[in-house]
């Protein structure tokens, strides 16, 4: 089975995020594999172990992403590909990333492509579906279970807390939701072996792409942190009066109802 995983290097949102000059301050931030992509890597490794084949992890980014790719290799992926856009692109969006990935994947004859359901940084959840669309293959998002038998793929997907079972055929693209599996720790022998596994580095040129072909379709106008939490208020008086005041405040002050 020819298995591909789309992986993104993101900053760790459990760390404190600061903003400087309209951008997220990357200095001192911790960078990790997007947690949803970790589920995708784990699922890919399990698929390979059960069905045979090879797992290739692909990322679009800069040299810094090599560490996250190596981590995926240490977990058990076989090959990694870094599509380095550092010298070619100043900025990009979901369209840019999807276009680059699709261009890379179009002649790879992937049986299955796995991605995270959403990246914890920009959180669009678009890249996976867009890639599937460009490759003209089916996709199923936010999956919590995956079974493959022959060409038939049975997927359980999370639908607003409920679940839905879908049957489709290979080749397919799926995006992983929390609960799909429990990602393994990269073992120490895994880490040592990862050093020797192939990590290919490509640029836009290698994919016959120009900057114009992948120019972002959207523009970030502003980035800001959510408002800091203010002290709470305790209402006083008769219960009926409190309820009335609360409704009134929610309507007029908080404007939520």
């Amino acid at each position, binding site marked *: 089975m020819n298995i591909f995983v789309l992986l993104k290097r993101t900053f760790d949102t459990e760390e404190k995020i600061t903003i400087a000059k309209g951008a997220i301050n990357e200095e001192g931030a911790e960078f990790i594999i997007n947690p949803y992509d970790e589920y995708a890597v784990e699922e890919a490794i399990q698929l390979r172990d059960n069905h045979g084949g090879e797992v290739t992890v692909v990322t679009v980014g800069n040299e810094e992403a090599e560490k996250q790719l190596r981590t995926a290799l240490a977990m058990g992926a076989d090959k990694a590909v870094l599509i380095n856009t550092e010298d070619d692109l100043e900025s990009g969006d979901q369209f840019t990333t999807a276009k680059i990935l699709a261009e890379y994947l179009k002649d790879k004859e992937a049986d299955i492509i796995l991605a995270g359901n959403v990246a914890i940084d920009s959180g669009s959840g678009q890249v996976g579906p867009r890639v599937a669309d460009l490759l003209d293959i089916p996709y199923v998002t936010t999956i919590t279970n995956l079974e493959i038998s022959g060409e038939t793929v049975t997927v359980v997907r999370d639908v607003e807390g409920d679940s839905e079972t879908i049957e489709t055929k290979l080749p397919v693209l799926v995006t992983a939701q929390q609960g799909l599996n429990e990602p393994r*720790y*990269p*073992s*120490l*022998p895994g880490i*040592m072996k990862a*050093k020797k596994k192939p990590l290919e580095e490509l640029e836009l040129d290698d994919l016959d792409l120009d900057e114009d072909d992948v120019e972002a379709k959207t523009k970030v106008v502003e980035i800001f942190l959510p408002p800091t939490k203010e002290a709470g208020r305790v209402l006083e008086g008769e219960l009926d009066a409190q309820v009335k005041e609360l409704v009134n405040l929610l309507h007029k002050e908080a404007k939520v109802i």
Partner: protein
Amino acid sequence: MNFELTNEQQMLKEMVQDFADKEIVPYAREVDETSKMRYETFEKLGELGLLGIPFPEKYGGAGGDTISYCIAVEEIGKACGGTGLSYAANTSLGASPIYYFGTEEQKQEWLVPMAKGKTMGAFGLTEPNAGSDAGGTRTRAILDGDEWVINGEKCWITNAGYSRQIIVTAVTGKREDGRNIVSAIIVPSDTPGVTISCNYDKMGVRGSNTCEIILENVRVPRANLLGDEKKGFSQFLFTLDGGRISIAALSVGIAQAALDKALQFAKERQQFGQSISKFQAIQFKLADMAMELELARNQVYKAAWLKDQGKPFGKEAAFAKLFASEAGFRICNQAIQIHGGSGYMKEYDVERYLRDIKLMEIGEGTSEIQRLVIARHLGC
């Protein structure tokens, strides 16, 4: 010069940190209270390949360097000092002597299962009247045909209750100048005559297993002698030098945990209308703690690096152990001070750090012995 960790070292650090957060931190208080080592943790450490970091792949290890090993000790120690001590002793004292001085057969028999994380091992040096003073060793091994017959007593032996074998030091003869030859012999724990009891009630590192061993007419094959019989104890000083680096790394781990807690507390604790981290009295404490911690870590890495380069590292290992344990004690003490009354309460963990780190100034050569070692290196 390059002060950056390699990609692999960085990955290892993150892996151990993740593992420790989920598998060690939640049990740290419990193992301290019950004084019972959690063996399951060691099974899992073994599955991840962490019990064989510095040994080559052909002996079941990961082929990592000493720096990687120190990183693992630090991260495990940060989560739980007791677990960190058992982890460090298992590799540095239980496995290393067999790797450095064992015959091929001994390595296959004893080292490989340890490096793979299937078994644990201990090193029995300390006796009621001997420790750093190896000359005071009373345990005797007498050759009877093809067997050593060992009699004696060992105390404060880490991990002995969970070990498949214990490397025991014993007097095996006399040199021409009349002084005792002290050798090391591998004793399988289930040999008749070996009695292991683990009933010490320790001040700290209580999650680590510590035992007393009585040896009564214990017979083991002659082939179990470890290393060169004539060279005696001096060859094992190398093992102790290596062990000191790991105790230093463990000190750094415990001290890092104390600094993290103190900094967090100082930022949250409000007094006189502001967080106490805004007061210079607290800031200066935190600044000193952070500085001493970083200096200690640098010295750990330097000693480890020297060892990896095959250069002499005895003096640097003593520097690292002495400085990291004493600075670590200061850091843990100040962490309690910053916490005030809360720090005296068990639920804030910092009192445990102080109890745990006290051992670092004692185990594997007291601070005073480290100073002696350093002075000797200076030519005194």
